[in-house]
């Protein structure tokens, strides 16, 4: 199983629709400061079910929507996994996980938004998402964010032991 493609639509600095295909093995993403590298990582976290916008450097979830010359009122991210090895118990060679946030301002709540999850195009809940990913052992623990590389050493001993608790 591997990540075949990421599709970003109006997500943070990716103000258009962009497809990023991946191959197995070792891929490096590089580029100047502020070009969007960590934003791609945030898009992966977005699909992995991270709920707190702060983890993706956003004040609120709607801050993930591209803000710039052309305004968008929604953002959408899809992760496409190769499932030929059936690591995910769905009878499909390809698993597409899509999450969408759409602004829906209300008179009493201008920050209101709607949140959507799709598995292979069918509506799903966040829980179904997370369950599916954990059946393949995919979780935010697969991700080390910028600046966090020494977090393991800097955290308290009890917090570190709890990492082992979760695995056991």
């Amino acid at each position, binding site marked *: 199983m591997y990540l075949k493609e990421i599709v970003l639509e109006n997500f943070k600095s990716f103000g258009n629709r962009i497809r990023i295909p991946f191959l197995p093995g070792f891929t490096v993403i590089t580029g100047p400061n502020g070009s969007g590298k960590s934003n791609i990582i945030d898009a992966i976290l977005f699909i992995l079910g991270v709920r707190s916008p702060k983890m993706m450097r956003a004040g609120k979830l709607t801050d993930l929507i591209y803000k710039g010359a052309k305004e968008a009122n929604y953002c959408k991210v899809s992760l496409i996994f190769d499932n030929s090895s059936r690591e995910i118990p769905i009878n499909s060679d390809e698993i597409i996980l899509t999450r969408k946030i759409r602004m829906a301002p209300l008179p009493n709540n201008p920050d209101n938004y709607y949140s959507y999850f799709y598995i292979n195009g069918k509506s799903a809940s966040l829980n179904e998402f997370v369950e599916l990913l954990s059946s393949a052992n995919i979780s935010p623990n697969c991700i*080390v964010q910028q600046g966090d590389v020494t977090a393991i050493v800097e955290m308290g001993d009890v917090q570190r032991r709890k990492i082992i608790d979760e695995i056991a």
Partner: protein
Amino acid sequence: KIETFYRVFESINENFKKIYKELADGEGELILENPENPFEGGLMIKVRPSGKRALHLNALSGGEKSLASLAFIFALQAYEPSPFYVLDEIDMFLDEKNAEKVAKVISEKAKEAQFIVVSLRRITLKHAHHIYGVTINKGISTLIGNVNLQEVEKIVDKIR
């Protein structure tokens, strides 16, 4: 329940010792504060970089802390593998020699799992199987796909 914990802990500890040796050429191990009842204590990391005495984790340098952290992360991965790992600038504290060691370890582990790594370091790019460049123009990010190292060196010599 304690038995399950110990089975997992011993295996991860073995991985940690092996991987830390490979990365830092030093001795490292995980130690339970309360071996009789692990859940009443924490998990300590003890490392001794080569040629030095083991000191408090806190006394380690930025690069030494990075290697210890990465050895732990890779040890967890060896116990319960995931299909992919995403690492953002894990080489920021590393000198050239250590950045290359980490890149080689990742390149080897990439036979078993997919690694997507953000890096500004020439030495890390040198060991990549595939390279993407990201640029931004008028506030919109775009991707330069599947660049080879020579093309990247034009960006990278401007990047880092």
